């Protein structure tokens, strides 16, 4: 076999007897994930941010993000932990409130684009080399050929200030990668015995797709979901800077966009706080996502 480092001289069945290791994909993934300290740390940080976002949802904190509570550009103090911005708004409250915005964008875009990508990818794979597949492949190729920011900007402009324009644009571009991956997996799966058996006993095609094929691509969907989540949060910053992002409310992207002028006037607080919050969440999510990929993709098993 290829690398002696990868195939260790320990035959599988013996291992199963001596140590009760889980044999399913998910069981092994869980074991692998648990041993990945970076991923666990990432998950923990993401959880903290999520709680922060939930708190904002329930109005426990971050409620006074829009009020001008202080003077312009006050330094950190007991009243304003991280100081105030140009309008005298509390930077900490705004950063905390933005956590909710980030999760809203990340979750909505990740869930929708994963659903769309999974569904269309499965359809495309199941009917591979038929017309549905050709049309879907053409659509994916087309969407991938339009430069991302141009596309998002165009959607935002076309939808004239609609608060969901940004989400829709991101979903419309992010689903293609997921769909391609799912398509490949489904093509692989549909030739496997259990699917052929399902055909043989006369199960309907949609039943096969939804009951047998899609669930088996769930690991791809999960990993892609995390990747899209991170991409969405990062894209929001750029779009908000370009004036195409969040329409009402506040987000780290808006804070950074506000701060671009302040930074050059020597006021760094808004910039540092917003970018740090975002960096920590994105970094944690990246670590978490990496851990998931290592755990779920046998080919990415560590070294």
């Amino acid at each position, binding site marked *: 076999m290829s690398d002696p480092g990868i195939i260790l001289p320990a035959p599988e069945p013996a291992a199963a007897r001596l140590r009760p290791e889980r044999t399913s994909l998910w069981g092994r993934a869980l074991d692998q994930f648990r041993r990945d300290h970076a991923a666990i740390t990432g998950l923990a940080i993401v959880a903290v941010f999520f709680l922060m976002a939930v708190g904002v949802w329930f109005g426990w904190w971050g409620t006074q993000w829009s009020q001008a509570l202080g003077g312009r550009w006050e330094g950190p103090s007991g009243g304003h932990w991280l100081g105030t911005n140009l309008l005298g708004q509390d930077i900490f409250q705004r950063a905390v409130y933005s956590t909710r915005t980030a999760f809203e964008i990340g979750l909505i875009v990740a869930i929708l684009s994963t659903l769309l990508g999974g569904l269309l990818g499965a359809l495309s794979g199941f009917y591979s080399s038929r017309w549905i597949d050709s049309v879907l492949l053409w659509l994916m190729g087309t969407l991938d050929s339009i*430069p991302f920011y141009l596309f998002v900007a165009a959607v935002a402009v*076309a939808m004239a200030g609609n608060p969901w324009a940004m989400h829709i644009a991101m979903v419309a571009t992010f689903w293609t990668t997921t769909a391609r991956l799912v398509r490949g997996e489904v093509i692989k799966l549909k030739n496997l015995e259990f699917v052929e058996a399902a055909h043989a006993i006369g199960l309907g095609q949609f039943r096969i797709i939804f009951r047998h094929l899609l669930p088996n691509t769930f690991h791809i969907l999960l990993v892609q979901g995390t990747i899209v989540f991170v991409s969405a949060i990062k894209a929001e*910053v750029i779009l908000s800077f370009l004036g195409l992002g969040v329409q009402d409310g506040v987000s780290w992207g808006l804070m950074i966009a506000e701060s671009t002028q302040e930074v*050059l006037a020597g006021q760094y607080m808004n910039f540092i706080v917003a970018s740090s919050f*975002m960096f920590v969440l994105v970094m944690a999510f990246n670590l978490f996502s990496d851990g998931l990929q290592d755990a779920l993709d046998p080919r990415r098993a560590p070294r």
Partner: protein
Amino acid sequence: MELLSYVIRKLIGGIPLILGVTLISFVLMVYFGPDKTFELLSKNPTEAEIAQVRAQLGYDRPFLVRYAEYLKEMATLDFGFSDSTGERVSSILSRTIPVSLALLAPGFVLGNLLGIVLGLVAAWYRGGWVDKLIMGGAVVGMSISFLVVIVAFQALFGVVLGWFPVRGWNVHDLPSYAYYVTVPTLASVFVALGYNTRFFRAVLVEEINRDHVRTARAFGARPAEILFRNVLMNAMIPIVTRILFSIPLIVVSGSLLIESYFGIPGIGKVTFDAITSGDQPILKAVVGLTAVLFVLILIVTDILYRVVDPRVSLTGDAR
């Protein structure tokens, strides 16, 4: 001859893609796009003037006519004049694209080269601390927003240190080129490096685990030789694919942010201004040409596959 017929076949095969891209972008950017009428009107317009300008902009014509016109413009590569300045679109493009290329080329080349080098190093020491350090750095790099990097670099190099200009593009010779291109290049390398390194490492690790690498080691090849001849050369297909396909995205999307922020008169800034002012002729040209570029890159990629891997033939299917 074989090559020529192949290219022609591929070009014809690219037509649906171009049609798709033009159709989608036409619907979004032109049909439902921004209305330029009121920017061209005076402070005190009359209904008649509004109708007049709308007619001049072609807003009053039916969808299909306008789309057909777009396709005709694509076929003749003549996109007319900018709706804002009245400058010929082709002259805008020929003025701005070289600027963008000169601006982005160093960052693009460096970002990929460094990415490959770091990827090779990490792959060679996979599992070791060097690998962990590089990959840790890559994740950090991936987690920082491009905008944050640009703002921070501009503040650092332009304002705090004052080594480089804060913005602008007043290039007339090599030193002035280096003067203006450095900070944007650093920023784009910084941002691209994390993603590139990760991708290249993954590809290279897969290759480094192959049997022929072990063979080479068993025959006493030096690490440099192995990394170059066995690992890198064999990983060329995914590497070439990634690099080539990132070109159109970088030329438009990448330059958009850098050029708007650094005030550089390249294609990205022109495109962005066209979006925010609804300059449809420019948008039509940029999107259409990007689609053509994609098709060309598809072809170039296939030809390069043939060059880097003897197993690939242009007539049959790859691998």
